[in-house]
């Protein structure tokens, strides 16, 4: 179902629940993996994914369609992730690296990465990036999102995003090479 149809049905109280159910089905996987890449842990990703869709439900009436529905949902998911990581640091008075180390431990415990040392180093290198730079890296590298759309999601200029991604790649390559030596 097209986004426009979903929005039209959502505005009709009789088909509101059905439309929202279809919206969740359409975007749940993308939102979940977008969140999961940021927080690594499935339980956290599950909570945040639900929170994202609850916010979508609450604010969909005010959605002005300046951006696409997909971009708008991505922006909500991005803000939820950044707020979650930020509040986690504040709650436990953790510096930046400690949260990265905690996420890296979760990575090591993940069965999918067992035995793949280069991939594990790559994932650890990604986790060492600051949250916002990691977000930019994920959107570009994994989701292959165009820079213009990334600019809408993150509220950052295209030039700044390109520079951020370029630096992220350099940092990752440097870390993996150091760990390999």
């Amino acid at each position, binding site marked *: 179902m097209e986004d426009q149809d979903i929005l039209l049905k959502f505005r009709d109280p009789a088909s509101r*629940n059905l439309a929202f*159910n279809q919206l*969740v089905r359409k975007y749940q996987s993308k939102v*979940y993996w977008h969140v999961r*890449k940021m927080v690594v842990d*499935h339980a956290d990703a599950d909570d945040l994914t639900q929170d994202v869709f609850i916010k979508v439900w609450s604010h969909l009436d005010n959605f002005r369609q300046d951006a696409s529905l997909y971009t708008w949902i991505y922006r909500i998911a991005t803000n939820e992730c950044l707020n979650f990581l930020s509040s986690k640091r504040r709650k436990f008075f953790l510096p930046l690296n400690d949260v990265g180390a905690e996420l890296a431990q979760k990575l090591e415990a*993940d069965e999918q990465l067992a035995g793949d040392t280069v991939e594990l180093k790559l994932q650890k290198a990604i986790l060492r990036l600051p949250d916002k730079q990691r977000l930019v890296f994920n959107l570009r590298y994994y989701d292959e999102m165009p820079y213009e759309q990334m600019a809408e999601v993150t509220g950052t200029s295209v030039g700044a995003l390109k520079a951020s991604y370029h630096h992220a790649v350099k940092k990752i390559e440097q870390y*993996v090479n150091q760990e390999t030596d």
Partner: protein
Amino acid sequence: MKTPFRLDEHPRRPQPPLAPPAAEYFDQLPRRVMQRVRPAAEPAPLWGWLARLSAPARTALASVVLLLTFVGSFWLTSRPSGRPAAGITRRTNAARALAAVPRAEAVQYLLSDAAPRVTLADLADTHVAERALPTEFLPGTDAEIQAALDEQPSLDVYL
């Protein structure tokens, strides 16, 4: 010599190799989300708007309500009263009712056993409340009363 790692030469995956969620996870997720949003979709109760306010807004509202309560109570207690107090009104009504009783009937009542004994406290109260009252029923002028008092033997209150 080892080849340095380059990201664009590394096989790109659509997503990081993290363990995927359980097979039925995405089948159940819409239902779980709907369960959480449905209560909010029901008609809001009278105080629903209060629940929708953020925590700082609720705190600010509570402070304003408390402040208004103090201001209101202060205003109500400090404003000048336009009506006589309830006690004064009651006393006036009692005096009117007593005046309406015929004199003979009142005398008859006072002489009968039904009348309560007048105590010293009652007299004191009457004297304080109505200072002009003795002049209405005490026989004689001020000079005669003073003379009568002077004739009384004085008691040595010090012994």
